[in-house]
């Protein structure tokens, strides 16, 4: 369990961390509206493969994206740890299906490094930084690029 120093709690933004294929990721909680357990997803045909469909969130119909599929990873069967993180970016609500959700950490700006330039490619721009939490490194994701707002071709792009 990474130790939190006192300064961590006061400076830096808060990030929600989650795992996909044993890799740790982080999302700024400013965009996270809620976290819900997995529920029935209604498939919508003729959409990109990484859009699993839509769910009914208290009367609101929101699309659900499987992040594994979005990153081109192998699909994994959903189990009881699978969650949906609901984020809102530019007034667009999207649910993200992830393997498991961990804690919320404060990561000060000093502990965040820019992503290495070695990786080039549109998929890798979605990682906006590397955040150090204790001994571990979390890949901080840019929600706008993840969801593809402002990039209309993204939805039709093959993942």
């Amino acid at each position, binding site marked *: 369990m990474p130790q939190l120093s006192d300064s961590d709690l006061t400076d830096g933004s808060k990030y929600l961390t989650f795992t996909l294929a044993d890799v740790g990721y982080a999302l700024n909680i400013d965009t996270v509206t809620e976290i819900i357990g997995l529920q029935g997803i209604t*498939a*919508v*045909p*003729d*959409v990109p493969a990484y*859009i699993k469909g839509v769910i009914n969130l208290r*009367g609101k119909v929101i699309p659900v994206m499987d992040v594994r599929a979005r990153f081109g990873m192998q699909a994994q069967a959903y189990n009881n740890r699978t969650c949906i993180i609901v984020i809102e970016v530019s007034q667009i609500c999207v649910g993200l299906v992830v393997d498991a959700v961990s804690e919320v950490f404060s990561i000060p700006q000093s502990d965040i490094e820019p992503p290495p330039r070695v990786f080039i490619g549109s998929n890798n721009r979605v990682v906006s930084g590397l955040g150090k939490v204790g001994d571990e490194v979390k890949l901080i994701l840019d929600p706008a690029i993840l969801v593809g707002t402002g990039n209309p071709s993204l939805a039709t792009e093959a993942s």
Partner: protein
Amino acid sequence: MTSGDNQNAEILAEFIIESRETLEKVEPLVIELEQSCAPQGETLAIIFRCFHSFKGTASFLGLEHTASLAHSAESLLDLYRRGAPIEAHQVDLLCRALDTFRGILDVVEVDASDASKGDACRALAAALDEAVSRTRAHSVPKSPRTALNKTSHHQDGANATAPVVLPQPWLPSTDPSSADAAGVGAHDAHGTLDVDWGESNVPITTEMLTRFVSESEEHLAKVEEVVVGLERGVAGGEDVAEAFRAMHSFKGNCGMCGLSDMEVLTHRAETLLGHFREKTRVPDEQSTSLTLEVLDVLRAALAKVPQGAASIPQLPALLARFDALDDKTAQRRRTVAQQQPAPPADATGPVKAAGSIRVDTEKLDALMNLVGELIIAETTVTKNPDLEGQTLENFQKAALHLNRLTRALQDIAMSVRMVPISQSFRKMMRLVRDLGTKQKKSVELVLTGEDTEVDKTVIEAIADPLVHLIRNSIDHGIESQEERTERGKPPSGKIWLEARHQGGEVWLTVRDDGKGLNTERILAKALERGIAEPHRQYSEREIFDFIFAAGFSTAAQITDVSGRGVGMDVVRRNIEALNGRVEVVSQVGVGTTFTLRIPLTLAIIEGMLVRIGKAHYTIPLLAIRESVKAHPSDITRLHDGKELLKLRRTHYPIIKLAETHRVPDAGTSAMDGTLVVVESGERLACLLVDEVVGQRQTVIKALPGYLNKVRWLAGCSILPNGDISLILDIAGVVGSAESRAA
């Protein structure tokens, strides 16, 4: 003149409501004047404008004392606008004026006259006039702060040299046609001077301009409607009075915004309308045509207002034409002015104030959304699967009551957005008149069912289709007068425009008694355009359907009105976007009828809930012809694997969503499932579904915008058990299945 009484009574009632609102709005601002003594220019502008329009309408209604009191108050306010210092006891006079006005409104409500308040008004007006002269003597009025337009620099110069003319009431102007920017107006029929402050001395914000533009569009539309009615002899005295007021308000607003060209032009048109109202001029073709022309010019100028360049180059020419008309009426005007009767002291009894309120459409939309969600939530509770199999008598009773309340709420929420279709219909009158004149055909428009109410969104969506249909009717349908007489038809063609509620729909019909659709010519054109296949037999209905194809037109000539072939497919698309349909019936030599069928409520859909694969879909009931369970003998298999259903004597293609849209787990055997016969336009097909669950009335929710629009889905809805059912867009389903086949 009893009709005069009635007109006045109605206008009076509205005047009283509006004035009460105005007084309420203005009072806190006047008090603010007292306290701050250095108020915002905008506050002064609002107060001034309130007094000004109050004065204008009071004068129009013959409330002379009120008008003169308002005028004195206005003079004082103008000095403040020009930078004169504000003294507390003067503001007190203004407050007392407001109180007096309130008292007058109460009296007028009963007596329709302010004669009883004459003394009070005179005394207060005198006090105000004294304040005005004292302020003028003591302070040097600076040159007026000018409007925030590109022309501001010019105006500054002009004001420095022009004499500051403080208006004297009741003075006749010497030159009625002067386009003088200081805006000294002409006599109107009541013999009072209507002075307009040509330039505003207050910065005009963009918000004010936007509001001005949209309000003005309404005013101009009203006037146009009445003038066209006058031409046809169907506009009554109250209509003309309403048009006069609309013109007057528009003129005042132009003045406030510093749009002097528009103001001057409007003033002449307003005067002409005044003549119509007083019957000192007969609305002959010359005057009505001029008025309509002026309205067009004003509209064009209005469009240029946001860019700040609203001058009217044709102004002198138009004013000259007004002068030509005026010369004829000058004689009669003076006679009538002398005979002007005093406002009726014994009007039609106390005037009842009708209640109405302007509401933001955003609020209405929010209300509609919430009501829709409420209905879903209610069903989720009352039809919850947790309750299955249980007998809960008290609960059921309560649920039933809740259901009744929710439905009642829904009905009212829907009705709030319902608007009579008359405004859309009436706009067509001008169109018919213009087109008829242009093409030298005599066409009469008959409107029925004008007060049929329709959702506001529908009104906006049918505007274009109606225009297209009527244009086509006049262009291609109605024959010339000679041709008609030859065929033994009355020389004047007729178009019937009708609206009525039918079932859960609104039916709009456009019917003409023209020459009807010629199937031979249509088929020939369709073949030419490659829309029809040669050597194929088409039924009459199928041939009529061709006219809705994109780019289709049998017009030999492309006029600027129609013939470009973009009309009909747009019509169909607009109507289908509302989940409606367009039908056409025609007989050669007799006429053509187009029927637009639109569901009454856009948010709720009557649908058939079906299961395809593991998912549930809703098919709009309007699109369903019937559903059958097929026998193997009814199914024909084609060489490419496609199957056809034989029903009675026709073959219908079978659409399997499993194949066409890769719906997972959907059945593919036509024998096992149910075949739902659906139609889109004249195209018929069968949809293979695994199970028909039942008929449902559900609230349509749009699919999240994030998902790129799937063309064969019209939206989704939430089922009672919380699942989501996708709503099929049958036109899209049939269309995309066809294109895949091609």
